[in-house]
């Protein structure tokens, strides 16, 4: 049942993954336009820009993570079957990451080439994204559950997610520096806390939907 839910959501997410991925690449392309095509500057700041683009791309799918299921009554059906809201939320986080994290990590390859990152930095970026994207997915599902059915849910979700994602951005961009394993560990700690806490916060929000 839960596996089916994850499979269905992940398939749906993968089908729509083109949107955040394209957005990610467009945002990465805009950066040289904004600061000039100086290869040295791009190579030194490009990794951070890709993290920022990933953060912005994570905002796009939020509106369709929970709202369709809430409108169609799927969430009520799941609740009537006695499945805990926390379980549903955890399944949604896992499915959202499957449809969002790996495509983004693949899109980071051409993104890094566009900004002229060297191989070592790209490796550290991919490691950071592998650790950080589950937390981005967890934040996305939590905020999606909080903003279901509200007026201007999309803009509201962006306003809510971005301040909470500041530590991910700081540690993720910090982990791009060579020889700094500490930042990666702190990123992992933050991501673990966010990912582990999200099902409970999102589950409580899903339960509040039925009041």
């Amino acid at each position, binding site marked *: 049942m839960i596996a089916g839910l994850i499979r269905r959501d992940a398939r749906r997410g993968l089908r729509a993954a083109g949107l955040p991925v394209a957005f990610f690449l467009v945002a990465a392309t805009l950066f040289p336009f904004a600061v000039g095509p100086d290869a040295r500057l791009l190579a030194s700041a490009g990794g951070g820009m890709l993290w920022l683009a990933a953060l912005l791309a994570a905002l796009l799918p939020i509106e369709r993570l929970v709202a369709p299921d809430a409108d169609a009554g799927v969430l009520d059906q799941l609740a009537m079957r006695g499945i805990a809201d926390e379980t549903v939320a955890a399944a949604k986080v896992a499915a959202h990451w499957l449809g969002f994290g790996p495509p983004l990590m693949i899109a980071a390859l051409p993104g890094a080439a566009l900004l002229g990152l060297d191989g070592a930095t790209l490796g550290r970026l991919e490691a950071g994204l592998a650790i950080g994207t589950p937390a981005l997915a967890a934040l996305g599902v939590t905020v999606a559950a909080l903003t279901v059915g509200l007026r201007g849910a999309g803009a509201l979700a962006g*306003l809510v997610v971005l301040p909470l994602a500041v*530590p991910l951005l700081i540690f993720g961009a910090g982990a791009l520096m060579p020889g700094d394993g500490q930042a990666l560990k702190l990123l992992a700690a933050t991501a673990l806390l966010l990912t582990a806490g999200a099902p409970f916060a999102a589950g409580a929000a899903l339960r509040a939907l039925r009041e």
Partner: protein
Amino acid sequence: MHAFANPTRFLSLARPLTGWLGWAGAVLALVGIIAGLTLTPRDYLQGETVRIMYIHVPAAWLGMAGWGGIAAASVAELVWRHPLAAIAARATAVPGAVFAAICLASGSIWGRPTWGTWWEWDGRLTSMLVLFFLYIAYIALADASADRGGGARVAAIFGLVGAINLPIIHFSVLWWRTLHQGQSIGFTGSTIAPSILWPLPLTTIGFTLLFTAIILMRMRMLLANAKLEARQRRMGGAA
């Protein structure tokens, strides 16, 4: 605590308390500010600019205490479903954001002559700015979800998530700062002289009392609005 679950009982206490706290706070804050502006000596290093401390420090304290209050009220809402908790949290958000903004603005005004810049990406400044953005997000979320079922719980969940995240944000920003060159700012080593310090407790207590009075006032407003809406709906149903 549940003794005040009855809005009528709460109001009978809140109504006189608003005036007492508000006036006492206003007098204390005014005395502290006047004393800080006229009676204390200027600082040997910072000159007259040190006087902004009498506003800046209480604003910083209340900006942080405001979110502490929201977090406490959120727990009361989520665990006990206390009927006044959601109203208290919503009433705290706007004054908290205003005091966080006062803290940022006064710090910026102080920083221009002292550091030579309006804004410095210092750890404490930056985490206060993120806290201000969290307030904005909370206000937007609470307003948007107020008229929906379970809306109070939505705001409470975000209040609690924000409270858990605040220390992480704070330490991540501090850690991020240490990556860059250190800024030799602040009162390193030297404590504040008592001759300058003494009005500070006055303004701190004064502004805190004012803050409490404002929250009580806003809670009464929110309760009155809810009552008004219920009455209008009842009359609409009867007609």
